[in-house]
């Protein structure tokens, strides 16, 4: 079998360039310019896949992106792309494609037995099963999961490149058929900067199937001249590029396939590109899609859309049938019939559902009538055949049931304008009862529609509407008129008119259980009728209940047929039934192109503290804190994290430790109203702070909950230094700006975020003061909560005496670019005294033992200052953000969760455990942080307990059901070390 159905000449394929590829492991040959579908059809392949629910054999129905049935997987390993349309995949050397949804092979699908039990899988099957006994669902679920489902996702990472690009233009034209090209030419001739996007690999749209004469030129020449003209005027032409989404304010997402599905990229490594185009005016020349018709077996391989049959013949040189039955409600199918007859096929019958009196009078129809068997008022009842294809058709001709032997049924149920982008842009539709088509009515954005997408019928109308849309867009942009005055004109315009007469009624003898509406989700006309009888009247309910239009093709060919069926049941006109929402993307989009470059390390920025390399030399265990990467522990020898953290924290408790606190939030607050400003932000007293002194402080949200904590220092009368948590620094920066600019614009104060201007080392431990004084001289160490200045290693520094660990401690600040020598000197001095570096894990252990709270731990957005045991710090006079909300009665409920300490009586307190009462196991709180007593050992924790401060001494259970760990705990005050605070002081 090799290209047996290929015509010897004609079409746009290059017969001199043979391409070898594989389908289901078998090697095939095609030609340059072929799609996977055309190449396989030429080879006589009819069966392309199995259907989603019933595993019915399916072939190719369409020739473009609307294909519902012939879905394949393309490529291998990380390049594998599932559910891609064989009709939208141009073959390339080495292509490996596989059919989907069959087991074990396409020809022998053991699951096709499902179609025998299809009466038991009716519409709404899944919903009905949910209401059945749960055990039954368990049985069904296993079965359904194995049987159903489209292609499989690849398991290997995709290494190919995807990029995002932004672009701007005056006029974006979507679609390069005759309307799109005419529109682009008109806009461009008027001086507009144009981008033209075409999903196919060639410009031309319908002209690629139906060549014509335009402006006295063959259409190929006209397309080439148009291309040259657009490029010469600075336009951008994007082929293989689909406009997938139309968003607000003229923004469209275009997906450019740089490579075909599964194809290895070129030297640039690029597989796909996402264009975000902001356009002044958008012209949608997206064409129209042909609709199938309802008859039994309308999904068999060998039943194809009439226009697709013509495309395979004219564009790809493939004659998809020898004995052909056509069924239509319009004149367009006659062009297919004539083309087939000319190519040597036998036209068995043309079944035209229109009455002879209502049929069109196009040249094609008149020609066909003279030489082909045309039957008016005739319909198809059933197609009969197997996985090998159609064998015969049962037709209703002149009231008689007639059997027709055939191997191809070409179907035309009229045309639906592609209005998806127009609707995404917020537009409305108008209904044409005669043609049975919705076309764009009102546009909500700077957007128009042209050509078949606007309901134009015939090449003449199409060219004119495109031209006019292009001129109108240019005019709306205020551009001068076009240099060319007349629209492109075509010969034989009448030949291209289709004059559809919509007919939604199947022949009365039709078995509706085999008449498919949605091919991809296996929804039949009988399913829709059943859903309607069960009370599903809203189109949105109907859609979800039957899954109509919910597959990857989003019902491109099926939706209107389904709507019409519902309207018929309702006895109402189609538009009154309503439409489901058109959502982006228009065609399926790979996740890779949406992610673009934002993968792996590029997903979010990694912020490195200025001392990153210095730490890296110590080979620490790193920990992400927000975007920052900070050392978690500095293991020595074979230490693990916990051994290392324990050694480090013991050093702080007994000697001295040094840690990098450069990432803290830091703000300079300067001006005559600096204190007044800080008293709005901070819930504690600031104004009374003496110069040279600092305080621990809390910042509240407007709802009264604690947002962040930090320290505030009065550097000079009108200059303060505010610190806040690392993770909350950006939020704090925005909050300060909000208070400054929105709430208190009258204050004379400047706030500067100096987070990365300063770097800092914290020195903590009984020997911390010795480190400072050895380096900076006797008396250089300020007393607790005071600040000082002085050179260290020749660098000017600021010293803040504040402690988080509970030991005497100093934070030494230096300008970021000068921290190196300061850090080195401090570390050397500390090591000389038996100290060491400590990381975040040791810091966590130390702060838990001391009962110090942390943002993201105890400050969890649900805790008030009082809940945290810090109520006494609040300024009683109020006047700060969050003060009013504290007056809510719920804020002083004695049963609120309050911060408490926990000591293990037995076992180790599990991280993240919940607290339950020993009797009755009533949940009453949770553990926020579990740690240990650094010196004596023993498991301790901080947590929240309902009315906790009144329950000291209670015995509870801390349990983590997921870890299957539990410990008996005693409720104590949330401080386990140096209750009097003596260690802070000298």
């Amino acid at each position, binding site marked *: 079998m090799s290209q047996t159905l290929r015509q010897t000449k004609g079409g746009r394929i290059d017969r001199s360039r043979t391409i070898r590829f594989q389908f289901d492991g078998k090697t095939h040959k095609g030609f340059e310019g072929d799609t996977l579908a055309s190449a396989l059809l030429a080879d006589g392949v009819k069966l392309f896949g199995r259907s989603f629910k019933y595993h019915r054999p399916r072939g190719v129905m369409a020739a473009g992106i609307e294909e519902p049935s012939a879905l394949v997987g393309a490529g291998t390993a990380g390049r594998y792309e599932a559910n891609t349309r064989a009709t939208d995949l141009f073959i390339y050397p080495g292509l490996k494609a596989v059919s989907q949804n069959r087991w074990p092979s396409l020809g022998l699908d053991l699951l096709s037995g499902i179609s025998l039990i299809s009466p038991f899988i009716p519409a709404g099957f899944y919903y009905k099963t949910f209401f059945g006994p749960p055990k039954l669902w368990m049985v069904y679920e296993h079965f359904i999961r194995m049987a159903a489902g489209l292609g499989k996702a690849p398991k290997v990472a995709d290494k190919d490149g995807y990029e995002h690009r932004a672009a701007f233009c005056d006029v974006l034209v979507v679609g390069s058929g005759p309307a799109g090209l005419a529109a682009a030419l008109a806009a461009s001739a008027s001086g507009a900067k144009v981008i033209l996007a075409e999903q196919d690999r060639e410009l031309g749209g319908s002209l690629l199937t139906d060549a014509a004469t335009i402006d006295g030129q063959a259409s190929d020449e006209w397309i080439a001249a148009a291309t040259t003209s657009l490029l010469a005027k600075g336009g951008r032409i994007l082929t293989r590029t689909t406009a997938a989404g139309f968003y*607000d304010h003229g923004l469209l997402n275009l997906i450019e396939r740089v490579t075909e599905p599964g194809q290895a990229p070129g030297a640039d490594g690029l597989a796909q590109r996402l264009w975000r185009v902001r356009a002044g005016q958008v012209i949608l020349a997206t064409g129209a899609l042909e609709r199938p018709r309802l008859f039994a077996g309308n999904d068999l391989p060998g039943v194809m859309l009439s226009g697709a049959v013509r495309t395979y013949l004219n564009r790809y040189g493939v004659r998809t049938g020898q004995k052909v039955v056509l069924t239509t409600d319009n004149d367009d199918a006659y062009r297919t019939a004539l083309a087939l007859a000319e190519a040597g096929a036998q036209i068995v019958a043309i079944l035209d559902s229109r009455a002879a009196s209502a049929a069109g009078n196009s040249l094609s129809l008149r020609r066909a009538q003279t030489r082909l068997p045309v039957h008016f008022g005739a319909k198809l009842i059933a197609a009969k055949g197997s996985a090998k294809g159609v064998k015969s058709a049962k037709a209703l001709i002149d009231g008689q049931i007639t059997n027709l032997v055939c191997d191809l049924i070409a179907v035309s149920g009229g045309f639906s304008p592609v209005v998806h982008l127009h609707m995404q842009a917020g537009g409305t539709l108008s209904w044409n009862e005669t043609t049975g088509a919705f076309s764009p009515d009102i546009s909500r954005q700077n957007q128009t529609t042209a050509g078949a997408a606007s309901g134009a019928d015939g090449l003449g109308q199409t060219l004119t509407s495109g031209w006019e849309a292009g001129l109108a867009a240019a005019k709306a942009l205020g551009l001068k008129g076009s240099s060319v005055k007349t629209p492109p004109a075509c010969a034989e315009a009448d030949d291209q008119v289709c004059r559809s007469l919509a007919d939604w009624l199947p022949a009365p003898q039709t078995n509706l259980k085999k008449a498919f509406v949605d091919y991809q989700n296996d929804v039949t006309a009988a399913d829709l009728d059943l859903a309607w009888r069960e009370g599903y009247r809203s189109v949105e309910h109907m859609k979800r209940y039957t899954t109509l239009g919910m597959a990857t093709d989003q019902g491109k060919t099926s939706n209107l047929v389904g709507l019409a069926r519902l309207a018929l049941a309702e006895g109402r006109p189609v538009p009154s039934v309503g439409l489901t929402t058109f959502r982006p993307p228009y065609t399926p989009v790979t996740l890779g192109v949406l992610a673009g470059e934002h993968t792996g390390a590029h997903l979010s920025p990694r912020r490195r503290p200025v001392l990153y390399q210095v730490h890296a030399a110590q080979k620490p265990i790193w920990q992400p804190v927000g975007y920052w990467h900070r050392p978690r522990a500095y293991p020595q020898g074979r230490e693990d994290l916990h051994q290392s953290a324990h050694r480090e924290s013991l050093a702080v408790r007994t000697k001295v430790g040094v840690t990098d606190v450069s990432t803290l939030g830091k703000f300079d607050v300067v001006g005559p109203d600096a204190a007044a400003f800080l008293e709005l932000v901070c819930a504690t007293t600031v104004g009374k702070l003496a110069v040279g002194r600092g305080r621990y402080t809390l910042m509240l949200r407007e709802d009264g909950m604690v947002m962040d904590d930090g320290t505030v220092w009065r550097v000079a009368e009108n200059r303060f230094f505010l610190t806040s948590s690392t993770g909350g620094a950006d939020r704090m920066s925005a909050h300060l*700006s909000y208070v400054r*600019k929105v709430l208190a*614009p009258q204050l004379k104060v400047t706030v500067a975020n100096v987070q990365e201007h300063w770097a800092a080392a914290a020195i903590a431990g009984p020997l911390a003061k010795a480190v400072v004084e050895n380096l900076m001289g006797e008396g250089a160490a300020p007393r607790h909560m005071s600040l000082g200045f002085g050179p260290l290693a020749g660098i000017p520094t600021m010293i803040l005496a504040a402690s988080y660990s509970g030991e005497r401690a100093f934070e030494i600040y230096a300008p970021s670019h000068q921290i190196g020598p300061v850090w080195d000197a401090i570390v050397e001095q500390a090591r000389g005294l038996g100290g060491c570096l400590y990381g975040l894990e040791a810091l966590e252990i130390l702060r838990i033992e001391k009962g110090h709270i942390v943002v993201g731990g105890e400050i969890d957005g649900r805790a008030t200052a009082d809940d945290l045991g810090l109520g006494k710090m609040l300024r009683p006079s109020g006047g700060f953000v969050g003060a009013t909300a504290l007056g*809510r009665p719920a804020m002083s409920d004695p049963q609120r969760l309050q911060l408490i300490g926990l000591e293990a009586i037995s076992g180790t307190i599990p991280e993240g455990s919940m607290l339950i009462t020993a009797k009755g196991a009533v949940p009453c709180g949770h553990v926020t942080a579990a740690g240990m007593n650094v010196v004596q050992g023993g498991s301790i924790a901080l947590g929240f307990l309902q009315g906790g401060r009144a329950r000291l001494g209670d015995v509870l259970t801390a349990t983590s059901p997921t870890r299957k760990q539990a410990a008996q705990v005693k409720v104590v005050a949330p401080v386990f070390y140096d209750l009097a605070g003596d260690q802070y002081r000298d």
Partner: protein
Amino acid sequence: MLLIHCPHCGPRAQAEFVFERPLESIIQIDEALPDLIPKLYSRVNPKGPSWELWRHTYGCQSWLKLHRDTHNHTIHAVLEIGQTPEGGDA
């Protein structure tokens, strides 16, 4: 994605901006408790024209007042906070 005309930076993509809240939900420091609750917990969600507070966070960082129609996303005005619209109220 909206296109917002920042008075300082010109037309910029919405991704550069952060929506803060409707202007009427700004809570003053000395807000009385009964007025605070609706501003915090039961904000209006108007369908139609609405004055809103935005920030050009990933641009010039200025606070802006937008007059935006939530129904069709038309932006009628973008003003610096503190500026009042000509003939309007905000």
